């Protein structure tokens, strides 16, 4: 059973006016079999947390620890983190011209599994995972994310989740930009991945909408670069009613949260 432990994590980014601290002491532990929702207003640092865990070069860790089953994640390169069992479903998946989706998926599976998957079973595996997510088989021959719609990109992220089977998956606003049907398909995909109970999901979202499809065990409110309150699913219900105003002192986000319901 895997555990991802984040201890007093401070992260800053370089700006024109010097380094700006975005994460301000994040403490968080997630175990396999658990689903945690991290909710918070825009600009609270939710996505920074996701990218810092994945190792994006833009973010500088100024102090703190991230450990996966006791291993120091921060000492690992981006690809080592993925091979150790971390996965980040991105809010804005990147287009990679010249690389077909099928070659990309196979290269990723080869890297994460430590050996190239047997071609015959691999083709079947990919086809079946694509069909689960209502992805047109033609996508395999298209370049990675190139010309994909927003919804198609998100499905493609969840497809990778299904094939790479990480220990801990961070889903960064996977629900944003999805219509009702796409949200259902994507949520079902995440739920299939959770089914075995051997994986942890950290669901980062602005809206409560996706939590109607993917039920979290714990809900955290993220504001000002750290977790300010944690609770059960009922905390999400409260956020839906009154927004983030209690945590930020701003009425704007309450209106946003209300409009999104």
């Amino acid at each position: 059973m895997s555990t991802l432990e984040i201890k007093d994590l401070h992260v800053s980014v370089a700006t024109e006016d010097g380094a700006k601290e975005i994460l301000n002491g994040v403490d968080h532990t997630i175990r396999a079999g658990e689903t945690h929702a991290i909710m918070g207003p825009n600009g609270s640092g939710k996505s920074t947390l996701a990218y810092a865990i994945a190792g994006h070069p833009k973010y500088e860790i100024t102090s703190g620890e991230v450990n996966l089953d006791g291993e120091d994640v921060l000492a690992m390169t981006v690809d080592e983190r993925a091979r150790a069992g971390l996965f980040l479903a991105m809010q804005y998946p990147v287009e990679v011209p010249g690389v077909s989706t099928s070659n990309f998926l196979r290269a990723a599976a080869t890297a994460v599994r430590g050996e190239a998957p047997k071609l015959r079973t691999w083709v079947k595996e990919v086809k079946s995972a694509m069909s689960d997510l209502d992805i047109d088989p033609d996508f395999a021959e298209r370049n990675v994310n190139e010309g994909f719609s927003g919804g198609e990109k998100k499905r493609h992220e969840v497809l990778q989740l299904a094939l790479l089977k990480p220990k801990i998956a961070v889903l960064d606003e996977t629900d944003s930009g999805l219509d009702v049907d796409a949200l259902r398909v994507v949520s079902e995909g995440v739920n299939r991945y959770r089914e075995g109970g051997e994986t942890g999901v950290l669901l980062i979202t602005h809206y409560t909408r996706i939590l109607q499809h993917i039920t979290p065990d714990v809900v955290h409110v993220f504001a000002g670069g750290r977790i300010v309150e944690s609770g059960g699913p009922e905390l999400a219900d409260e956020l839906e009613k009154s927004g983030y105003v209690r945590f930020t002192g701003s009425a704007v986000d309450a209106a946003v949260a209300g409009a999104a319901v």
Partner: protein
Amino acid sequence: MTVPNTAPEVAGLAPELAGAKKGQGETPIASASERFTSYDVEAFEVPGGREENWRFTPMRRLRGLHDGTARFDGTAAIEVSAAGSADAGATGVPRGVSVETVARDDARIGAGGVPADRVAAAAWSAFREATLVTFDGTPEPVTITVTGPGEGTTAVGHLQLRTTPNTSATVVVEYRGSGALADNVEVVLADGSRLTLVVTGEWADDAVHVGAQHMSIGRDAVLRGTSVSLGGDVVRISPTVKYRGPGGDAELAGLGFADAGQHLEQRLLVDHAVPNCTSNVIYKNALQSVKGLTAHTVWIGDVLIRAAAENTRTFEYNRNLVLTEHARADSVPNLEIETGEIAGAGHASATGRFDDEQLFYLQSRGIPEDVARRLVVRGFFGEILNRVTLPELRERLESAIEAELAVTGA
């Protein structure tokens, strides 16, 4: 070998770039159909670098090939052997292939086309003898190796490849070595013949190659060309395709991998002047460099469909992949259509960057950085390399490309 000079004294293309010649007191030509050609070097003005067809080329690095200062003091050896057997000697030419060394007044010389720039004309004016390779029947594949004259020397070359009617042949032309070479390659396809032509440029770092390829496609003849440009300091190749009868079909595919400081230029013209012919041009370049040096690729794709060329089908396509900073890819597609009665015509050009975000994305899926870069480049070039049907050659080129990636240590 001089022919009367009746056309305007400017060899240029791409009318939308007419402004490039401003300040020289010359009027840009309006169309590729007015392109000036001559066998005589003196019929061309010495280009200064601002002319339309020279404006991308680093003239100072041409070793005087363009301005008459190159002494042509070296020799570029041309050897013909059976493909796949590196040790095949002079007798190793397959049945159905004849190799001749002919004088410049041989009646067959010039059947492919006429030089359209001063370097090609300089090479044509200076060569003493040409290598002429004729393919008859269905011979085994042949490799022709052209070796540069050696560092610090310059040479001219002349090679003609010709088929007899209904022949089907495969030939690989490999450029290697050092020095500067200006040459003309004529490809003359007889009616109903088919030639698969692979041209590779695996030059040493110092090499300069300015080459013209004159392709003349007979009735119902098929040309399947693939060019692979890897080495050299400056390599500028100008293929021109013309059709002698209806039913001709030419496909020109190519790839270039420009490293730090390299200039790779491809200038294509497909001239459709007869009906019912097909052309398909697909070129891809990748570029990588380091600070202080620039990698530069240039692709010019001119397609001309003259009034008589009814029912023409043509497509041209250029893709450039910029792998690092300090790289520049120029791409100028140009399609001129003088008849409404065509089967199809199109062109596409795009230049994309492999950047840190793409690298992060691939790495975040567990793919190590070197594998990620290889994946991108291999995927990008696969479409071109897959056309090389000789497995040993394809593997060698694939490894050469991977070795290029390793050079920058990216």
